[in-house]
């Protein structure tokens, strides 16, 4: 481990996590408010800065200046650690997402792990601890119910989430996200197999299980990030604010930011797995080999391509949130356990059959 590697990793961490992802969180909050406003024929925040772009900054300052109130009846230690436990895993999962091909000869991924998706699921499932601890440590009814709901919801949908990507892993025979992306760059995106080997009978047949797993993956992602239509842990009409009812000031803000960060990482993972990550459609500007050197401009275009896709996905998340009503709890559990779980299992078998039959 030489100093050059450390320096490069550190730069990537600082730039990708703190200079790109966190501002993107702020931007997402702004976009959420503006888009929801437009959908409901309103204007939304437009006073602070151009187009109200500085609104998240103003909100952040407001959160910092508010009284950080700790109620007397809470379990202090757990109460304090819970917000951090929701924010940290969300940011940790950034580590394996390949957000670009290469730039200055450096791979544009913080940690090129060989178990990418597994790492993401392992870390993302830690988020549930933050919510459970928040719900339990608050020592009051609404947070407790919110925490319980969230636990069962996240555990149920994690299974669907994991099973839904098994077909993809079977098709690519690979758990390294960088290699999966390169494979897609050459042979067509999972959801757009129109070039390379994707443009064949096998590719066309495999598109069916991939599309099914895409639907399951995205729906489970919604449930996993506690967003509408699955925001039962914090549904205002029943549980006041759910697990963060007793939180104020920056501790509440951490829950809030953690939710949005999880949403961005979820979008990033969906883009990486189904929409070819940083690659451009139809194999344009694809490097000759995995981690093959590309020029500065091409590298920049690849990074831009990744973030354009992620932002598009975030907008999709937002529009869905303001379109669909909330599920009832039994409907949520039925959907997760009765439908998605079985469909995902059948989907795995279907993929195996297609791969076996075509070969």
């Amino acid at each position, binding site marked *: 481990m030489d100093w050059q590697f450390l320096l490069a990793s550190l730069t990537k961490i600082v730039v990708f996590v703190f200079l790109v992802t966190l501002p993107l969180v702020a931007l997402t909050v702004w976009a959420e408010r503006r888009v929801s406003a*437009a*959908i*409901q*024929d309103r*204007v939304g925040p437009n006073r602070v800065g151009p187009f109200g772009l500085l609104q998240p900054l103003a909100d952040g300052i407001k959160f910092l200046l508010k009284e950080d109130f700790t109620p007397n009846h809470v379990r202090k230690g757990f109460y304090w650690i819970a917000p951090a436990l929701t924010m940290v895993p969300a940011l940790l999962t950034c580590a394996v997402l390949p957000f670009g091909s290469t730039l200055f000869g450096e791979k544009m991924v913080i940690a090129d792990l060989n178990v990418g998706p597994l790492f993401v699921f392992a870390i993302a499932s830690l988020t549930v601890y933050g919510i459970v601890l928040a719900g339990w440590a608050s020592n009051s009814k609404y947070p407790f119910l919110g925490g319980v709901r969230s636990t069962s919801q996240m555990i149920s949908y994690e299974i669907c989430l994991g099973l839904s990507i098994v077909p993809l892993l079977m098709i690519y025979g690979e758990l390294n996200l960088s290699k999966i992306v390169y494979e897609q760059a050459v042979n067509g995106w999972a959801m757009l197999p129109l070039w390379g080997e994707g443009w064949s009978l096998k590719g066309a047949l495999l598109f069916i299980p991939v599309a099914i797993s895409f639907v399951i993956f995205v729906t489970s992602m919604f449930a996993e990030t506690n967003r509408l239509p699955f925001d039962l842990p914090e549904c205002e009409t029943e549980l006041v604010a759910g697990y963060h009812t007793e939180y104020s000031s920056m501790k509440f803000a951490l829950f809030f930011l953690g939710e949005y960060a999880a949403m961005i990482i979820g979008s990033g993972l969906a883009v990486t797995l189904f929409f070819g990550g940083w690659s451009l459609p139809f194999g344009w500007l694809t490097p000759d080999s995995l981690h093959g050197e590309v020029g500065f401009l091409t590298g920049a275009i690849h990074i831009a391509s990744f973030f354009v896709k992620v932002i598009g996905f975030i907008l999709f998340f937002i*529009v869905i949130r303001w379109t*669909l009503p909330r599920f009832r709890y039994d409907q949520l559990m039925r959907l997760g356990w009765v439908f998605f779980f079985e469909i995902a299992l059948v989907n795995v078998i279907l993929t195996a059959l297609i791969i076996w039959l075509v070969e």
Partner: protein
Amino acid sequence: MAIVVKRPKLKWWEHLYIPAIVSGMRVTLGHFFQIVSKKKKVTMQYPEEKWDAHLPEHYRGAPALVTDEQGRERCVACQLCEFICPPRAIAIRPEEIPSDDKWAKVEKRPKKFDIDMVRCIYCGMCEEVCPEQAIFLRKDYAITGTSREEMVHDKGRLYEIGGVRTGLVNKWNYHK
């Protein structure tokens, strides 16, 4: 007796839920693009854009005192408005007009005329009751202040808002 609500029988594609999502998104995105492309405008940007030109003739804004064409203050301090005012926002202290004054024959005028705009409910009863047509509800609606004292309109402020009204009452005209 229990009532059995008949549930609609869904077709198989309706069970899939995806067509419902698509049609729902058509509605929301329709609204989104109408607003974004500025085809439809619903909200008025208040401090910059105002609706003042569209205020109706009978709009009831801040009450104010008026002077007549000869510069005489119309109010004769009869205190009817003070008595009728439902929230008791008006406080008048009358004084006698000295005999050497040009308007000595009017006899009374308000020494102090305060309207507490924190209390005022803009009902317009003062205007209705005034026998001298001295108090009117104007179209001013943005009455703000940083203290309670500031929100009390005194005589000077009331005449400033009210200005001059000609005609209406001619009995004090000294040509008559």
